[in-house]
């Protein structure tokens, strides 16, 4: 009998080692062709027993966030931009009782609008700024708008994100220009490198870098033999020397900053994030941040890092571009391909531990806290998971995300809250159902007894990049049966 174990171990090796290397990526967006109009069917979504889900509004184009005014009326923002280089007019829409929408304010083609909050008579909208730089817009209910800050460094991979109001300040996230600090040919694939050839990440304070220079084909010249050599925190095809000082400044990338409600200079709250997409206030006044983690792409690919949930600490540093949580990237080896080399010659300070580890490539984005015991899960964070964008972000064995999860912030325990009913995971377009496509934000109503889920709509991943589908966005509402 003992001998049988001689065979079990090799067989186990076969089991564990074969899947990832042999099988192709199975991302949820890897759909050859999305056919027809989106079907919307609440029965295709599973929520916990005792809860129901319904449609509030449909046929929206790239919706990204919901807010409520002081009368409890719901508003939604349409992004005006999607990965895949689709530029439209972003819009603030009021949702009428019959589910129809009325335009309150339309912005310039400088999306994506990534988030919205309402405070004391005004909406505050994060304008992603893919073309002109990021802004925070202040808009009243009649549609009169002004910028309270602009020219944020938002023309790259990630944008100006998710405003929340606390102590007469608007707090907002500012994503990084790149995946892991180095401008590369993946940024050309996004589109922005051709528009802004000198754009790169800006640190929030002066840093010293190691001479990590990456050689690639130079996509900005016509000569196929021309090479680009690019260092961290530098423009494309610009080398760095060992211990070179890179000048920091504010505004900067990979940071949470704040600005007074009536505008003014931005102040740094914390930095070292990668893409701090979702910000939310807990009942005790703490701010929590969802951070989209590294991808397996570009000149400095990073493998196997899940999205993170952090509690925001003033003056803290969160580790980008050299750590995943508390783990140095140098210790995070993709077998056979080595690990990323350290960029910072000296860390600004100790990185800050995360509250929870979310799925790799889950794109854990919008976040909001339950504050009503009648709804349940009081004090827990609800997070919308947009879902993977494999294979562009890296390979996955199965679709990741495409659901709403809840997180106990004291323990980091993550549980599903809403997902699709099919046995396999994935967006509705893959499963051929009428369920969730790509949840991007969650928002409780002011009473806290209804959870709104903002579903961006169909975004498939083609050979040439993302293919977003207009008029496929949906707002869902979850309530608990009395």
């Amino acid at each position, binding site marked *: 009998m003992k001998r049988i174990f001689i065979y079990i171990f090799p067989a186990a090796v076969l089991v564990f080692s074969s899947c990832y290397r042999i099988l192709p990526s199975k991302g949820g967006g890897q759909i050859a062709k999305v056919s027809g109009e989106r079907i919307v069917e609440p029965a295709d979504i599973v929520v916990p027993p005792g809860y129901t889900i319904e449609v509030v509004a449909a046929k929206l184009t790239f919706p990204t966030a919901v807010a409520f005014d002081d009368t409890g009326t719901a508003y939604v923002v349409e992004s005006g931009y999607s990965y895949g280089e689709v530029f439209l007019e972003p819009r603030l829409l009021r949702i009428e009782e019959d589910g129809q929408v009325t335009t309150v304010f339309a912005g310039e083609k400088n999306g994506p609008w990534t988030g919205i909050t309402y405070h004391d008579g005004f909406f505050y909208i994060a304008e992603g700024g893919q073309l002109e730089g990021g802004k925070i817009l202040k808009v009243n209910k009649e549609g009169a708008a002004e910028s309270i800050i602009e020219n944020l460094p938002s023309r790259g991979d990630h944008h100006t994100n998710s405003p929340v109001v606390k102590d007469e300040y608007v707090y907002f996230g500012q994503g990084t220009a790149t995946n892991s600090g180095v401008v590369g040919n993946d940024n050309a694939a996004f589109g922005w490198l051709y528009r802004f050839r000198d754009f790169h990440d800006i640190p929030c304070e002066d840093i010293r870098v190691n001479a990590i220079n990456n050689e690639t084909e130079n996509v900005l010249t016509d000569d196929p033999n021309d090479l680009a050599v690019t260092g961290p925190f530098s423009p494309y095809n610009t080398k760095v020397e060992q211990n070179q000082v890179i000048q920091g400044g504010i505004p900067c990338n990979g940071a949470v900053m704040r600005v007074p409600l009536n505008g003014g200079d931005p102040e740094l709250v914390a930095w070292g994030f990668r893409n701090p997409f979702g910000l939310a206030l807990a009942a005790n006044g703490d701010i929590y941040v969802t951070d989209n983690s590294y991808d397996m792409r570009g000149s400095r690919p990073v493998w196997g890092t899940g999205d993170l949930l952090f509690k925001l600490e003033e003056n803290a540093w969160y580790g980008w571009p050299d750590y995943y949580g508390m783990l140095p990237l140098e210790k*995070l080896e993709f077998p056979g391909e080595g690990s990323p080399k350290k960029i910072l010659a000296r860390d600004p300070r100790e990185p800050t531990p995360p509250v929870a580890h979310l*799925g790799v490539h889950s794109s854990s984005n919008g976040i909001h806290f339950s504050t009503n015991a009648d709804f349940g899960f009081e004090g827990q964070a609800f997070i919308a998971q947009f879902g993977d964008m494999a294979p562009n972000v890296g390979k996955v064995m199965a679709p990741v995300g495409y659901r709403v999860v809840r997180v106990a912030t004291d323990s980091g325990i993550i549980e599903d809250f809403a997902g699709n009913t099919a046995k396999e995971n994935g967006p509705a377009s893959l499963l051929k159902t009428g369920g969730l496509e790509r949840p991007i934000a969650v928002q409780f109503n002011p009473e806290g007894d209804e959870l709104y889920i903002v579903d961006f709509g169909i975004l498939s991943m083609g050979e040439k990049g993302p293919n977003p589908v207009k008029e496929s966005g949906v707002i869902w509402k979850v309530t608990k049966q009395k």
Partner: protein
Amino acid sequence: MEGDKTEMRKLKMGLILVILVFSGARISSCSTPKVMPKAEVVEMPTDDLREGRNLFNSHCSSCHPAGKAGLAPGIIDKPLPEFLIRFQIRHGVGVMPAFDEEVLSDQEVEKIAEYLVYLRKENRN
């Protein structure tokens, strides 16, 4: 001599059986079981399972969300005994990194394995 042949036949049969079992497991390991979301906060019945769940969430769930497939294959859809789970955590066969004693103690590895077996049973019910 005849005894040796019988022994060899038994070994061959055993090998075939093991390969068949694990081939089936490998195929199923790349799919995701469906689990109904819970309407209440889920408490673990023992302290070890509670700690196992916390450790799993800190070290494993990013790649195996809720024990299911994601970046990596699912764990809770395979008939793997606890000792093989412990072996995999320690030695990191395939692309999975090994978790050495500096990261997870033997007791912690045992608690993760125990939690995964518990999770598998829960999902089967």
